[in-house]
């Protein structure tokens, strides 16, 4: 397996040692790549920040760490980073996207020199699901313009948000900086201005990547690259004489055929080996749906010892892509987003506001027995009012405008002395 290419200009410089997150070699006959990691959380961490730093989706980190608060996890809590994957049951060439796993795999080379680059993605919602099937990259565009589909414009209008016919490149553009237009009309693989949405079903059918990931994918993907989009919540794979099973919570539009397919495969494994599978273990993996490969069967005696044990990883001093919170100035405009009694609720809301795309900076200030969630600072009243509008439309929050404490009035007070 390969480590991180430190000389690669496109790789963000946030890796600790040789942690494999995006790039893996695939040994012939293997279907499982990577290994699980452990990390101890620090005060102020949130799962979306941890997920982005390790190039994981929020779905993956949440599924393997049930019960951990996404926004306000406990400091010192040890969580698992699911950096191990079973390759989807699809041709190993071009791009393969597994919607259920919310992960994209890009294959390079073949046979013994097969390499796979993998990135977490955001996919379509239940109402507007991503398509499945075979297609290809039709064209590539840097700094794309988003031509707003009528259906989306209507959705926004209902919420009181009037979208323009086209959104030019920039922080407001949801396509981000790079786009791969697919041969299936209206569907793209693109970046995002909402990085916290990676690992969520939040798009209108397109495939979203972190800004740093789309940059690499864009560079490594020529036009005409085949793209296979599959929806496989149940995955089976082999590595070092072990059969692994990986289960993701199935999407609602899933049919029983997928389950039947995996059941037939399990029966075939039993038949081939002449031994009985531990079906209670299979059932447990199915029920828990943790989204990571779990060894369920030894194809040869003693191969169980070859399971890649999870590794502890040191908490980085800075998490890549974590929203920065500027200092709140009294002479700047700001917005009171909420006044709450519970500190955890306030911290959670503040984190959610910070992870909007584009970011709305927010922090919690203690006020008597309550906690104020203050968004800002904003350069002018218009910017603050825009933030109030976004808070209302996107988060159903009624923000209150806080005017700056005017310097002039302070100075006047000083002159009187």
């Amino acid at each position, binding site marked *: 397996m390969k480590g991180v290419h430190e000389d690669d200009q496109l790789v963000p410089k946030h890796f600790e040692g040789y942690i494999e997150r995006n790039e893996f070699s695939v040994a012939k006959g293997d279907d499982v790549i990577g290994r699980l990691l452990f990390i101890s959380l620090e005060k102020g961490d949130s799962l979306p920040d941890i997920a982005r730093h390790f190039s994981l989706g929020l779905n993956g980190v949440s599924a393997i760490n049930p019960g951990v*608060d*996404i*926004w306000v996890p406990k400091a010192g809590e040890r969580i698992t980073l699911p950096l191990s994957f079973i390759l989807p049951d699809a041709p190993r060439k071009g791009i393969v996207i597994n919607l259920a796993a919310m992960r994209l795999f890009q294959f390079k080379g073949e046979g013994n020199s097969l390499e796979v680059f993998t990135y977490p993605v*955001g996919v379509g*919602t239940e109402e507007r699901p991503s398509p499945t099937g075979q297609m290809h990259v039709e064209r590539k565009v840097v700094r794309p313009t988003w031509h707003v589909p009528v259906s*989306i414009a209507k959705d926004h209008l209902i919420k009181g948000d009037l979208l323009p016919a086209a959104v030019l490149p920039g922080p407001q553009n*949801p396509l981000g900086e790079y786009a791969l237009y697919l041969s299936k009309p209206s569907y793209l693989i693109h970046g995002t201005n*909402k990085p*916290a*949405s990676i690992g*969520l*079903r*939040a*798009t*209108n059918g397109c495939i979203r990547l972190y800004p740093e990931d789309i940059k690499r994918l864009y560079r490594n993907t020529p036009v005409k690259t085949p793209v296979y989009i599959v929806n496989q919540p149940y995955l089976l794979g082999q590595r070092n004489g072990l059969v692994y099973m990986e289960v993701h919570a199935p999407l609602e539009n899933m049919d029983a055929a997928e389950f039947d397919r995996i059941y037939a495969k399990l029966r075939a494994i039993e038949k081939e080996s002449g031994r009985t599978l531990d079906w209670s273990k299979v059932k447990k993996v199915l029920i828990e749906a943790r989204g990571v490969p779990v060894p369920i069967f030894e194809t040869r005696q003693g191969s169980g010892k070859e399971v890649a044990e999870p590794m502890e990883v040191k908490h980085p001093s800075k998490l890549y892509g974590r929203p920065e919170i500027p200092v709140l100035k009294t002479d700047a405009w700001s917005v009171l987003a909420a006044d709450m009694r519970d500190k*955890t*609720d306030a911290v*959670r*809301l503040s984190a*959610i506001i910070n*992870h*909007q*795309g584009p970011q709305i900076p927010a922090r919690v200030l203690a006020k008597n027995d309550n906690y104020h969630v203050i968004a800002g600072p904003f350069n002018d009243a218009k910017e603050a009012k825009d933030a109030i509008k976004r808070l209302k439309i*996107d*988060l*159903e929050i009624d923000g209150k405008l806080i005017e700056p404490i005017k310097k002039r009035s302070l100075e006047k007070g000083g002159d009187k002395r």
Partner: protein
Amino acid sequence: MKSLLVILMMLVLAIAVGGCATQGDLEKVQSQQMLTDAKAEQAVQDAQTAKAASDAAALKAEDAATRAENALKMAEEREKVADEKAKKADAIFQKSMKK
């Protein structure tokens, strides 16, 4: 005749002596009876006091158990509310991540 008188006198003496012993015994028995009664009464009182104390302790224990149960219920309720609030916040967040 003389011997008959002696016998009679001895008999009278014996009766007289015997009559004196019976009176003492009776007084002693009566005194013991009184002591026993007093002790019994004390025992009844003690038992009543003990029962009252035991009843009070039982009530207190029951009260403590009820309070503990209520506290647990309230803690569970708070946890449930916190979970619901977290879920609600998360649902709103997920909605906000759409285009």
